[in-house]
């Protein structure tokens, strides 16, 4: 099967100076389809975030290949964008200017940048906050800006690295619903890394469980819950069965 994004036998070892090398990924395979919402869960340090950085083009793997549209990924590109766990906002820029950052780097004319920022501010529900600085916003609002920043360059693929992990539980529930709404409107392929099984099931078309380090794909679960997803689905037997099955696959990999 030729995927939209494909990783074949990807391996990566970090060699920090004066310390033992760390094998982050070893023989990692993945195939993501266009428009799909795929979540990756795995134990801490299994290399899930590393893989996102490889896809983003910030880190080069030592072995194997990572393809998008059948072409190897050589570096960052405007077809991919990341939403970071710690939001990734420049503190000296207002909401609007943070959203415009990617367009600025692509030398897009100011008028067009403003129009895009204005549209995205509305899309992520931050109307009236365009002139605010990040420190004036709550965690949930900051991540809305982070999402808008990633969407601004209109990438095909959104990479999300535990984007809601820094938020409180209620804000997180709200942001999950918001993300699904935005995903429906913007129609992106999403790779979503998380620690939370609930979150992965609720959001995704498929959930991949990764092994402990060096990370490999252990098992993939298809989530056949209907869309649009409703909050009530979280308490259905079907949801709970999936949760249990994923947990049973995951728990052997967790080293406490």
């Amino acid at each position, binding site marked *: 099967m030729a995927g939209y994004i494909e990783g074949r036998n990807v391996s990566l070892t970090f060699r920090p100076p004066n310390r033992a090398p760390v094998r982050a990924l070893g023989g990692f395979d993945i195939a993501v389809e266009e428009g799909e919402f795929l979540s990756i869960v795995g134990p801490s340090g299994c290399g899930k975030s590393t893989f996102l*950085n490889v896809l*983003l*083009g*910030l880190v080069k793997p030592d072995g194997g290949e990572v393809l998008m549209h059948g072409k190897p990924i050589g570096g*960052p*590109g*405007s077809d*991919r*964008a*990341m939403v*970071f766990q*710690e939001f*990734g906002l*420049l*503190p*000296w820029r207002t909401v609007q200017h943070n959203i415009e*950052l*990617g367009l*600025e*780097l*692509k030398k897009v004319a100011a008028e067009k940048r403003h129009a895009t920022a204005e549209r995205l501010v509305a899309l992520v529900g931050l109307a009236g906050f365009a002139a605010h*600085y*990040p*420190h*004036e916003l709550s965690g949930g609002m900051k991540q809305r800006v982070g999402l808008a*920043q990633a969407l601004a*360059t209109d990438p095909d693929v959104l990479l999300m690295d535990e984007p809601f992990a820094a938020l409180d539980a209620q804000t997180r529930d709200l942001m999950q619903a918001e993300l699904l709404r935005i995903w429906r409107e913007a129609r992106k392929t999403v790779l979503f890394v998380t620690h939370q099984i609930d979150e992965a099931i609720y959001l995704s078309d498929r959930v991949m469980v990764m092994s402990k380090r060096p990370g490999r794909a252990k098992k993939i679960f298809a989530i056949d819950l209907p869309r649009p997803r409703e909050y009530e689905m979280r308490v259905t037997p079907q949801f709970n069965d999936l949760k249990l099955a994923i947990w049973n696959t995951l728990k052997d990999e967790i080293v406490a």
Partner: protein
Amino acid sequence: MTEQATIRPTFAARYRKILFGGFAVLLFFAAWQTVFLFVPFNPLFISKPSLIAAGLVDLVGSGDLFHDLAVSAVPFFIGLAAAVIVGVPLGIVMGWRARVGYALDPLMTAFYASPLVALAPLLVIFFGVGVSGKAIIVFVLSVFPFIFNAHAGVRAVDRLLINVVRSLGGGEWDLYRKVIFPSVLPYIVAGARIAVGRALIAVLVGEFFAASEGIGYAISRFGDIFALDRMFGCIFAVMVIAVVLTEGIRWAERAAFPWRVGQ
């Protein structure tokens, strides 16, 4: 808007910082003045606020004070500007390029730790008694706070923000412009507060050694002729300038970096 629980602090509560500080300053001068009611006063060795104030009025009235200050301001600002132009890029490169940092750090630390003021006579011999000699002394003393603060600022740059700009397609130059420089700017301004103090000392020292005008020359000449009222008057003027400059920078910091308020 209804007129409800808006708590208005009283005048005393609002200006409490200035009131307490100002009171302490007044108390200091009052104590200085009164102590000579009990201690014999010898104008050859010491002065007192009433005489200093009279001396200052003299100096201001004759225009001498402003002339001397204007003369001293030239090497002060030239030296300080050179310190910014050299120190900031050097500190940034030392912080961002690890090997440059490793190479230059010991040298810079040694220079910073050594009593550079002691080199002032030498610098005057090398570069002359004019503006350039003094500007170089100012530069030598005030460049290090810029180097070290820019260096520290770069090392405190959030790696995440570097990754954000890289992932959005930014190159090396974009990193400098969009992340590194804005992160370092508040550190540079903080460095400027230290540098201004050192630059003032540098001008005075330079003028002590070799000058025919300038505020440092005035202080040293009034000291030589035992005109202590006017000597202290000049010192007082320099002190006020130092306070105005450092407080001005502090104020500019708050105005220029509103995003730091929440940090």
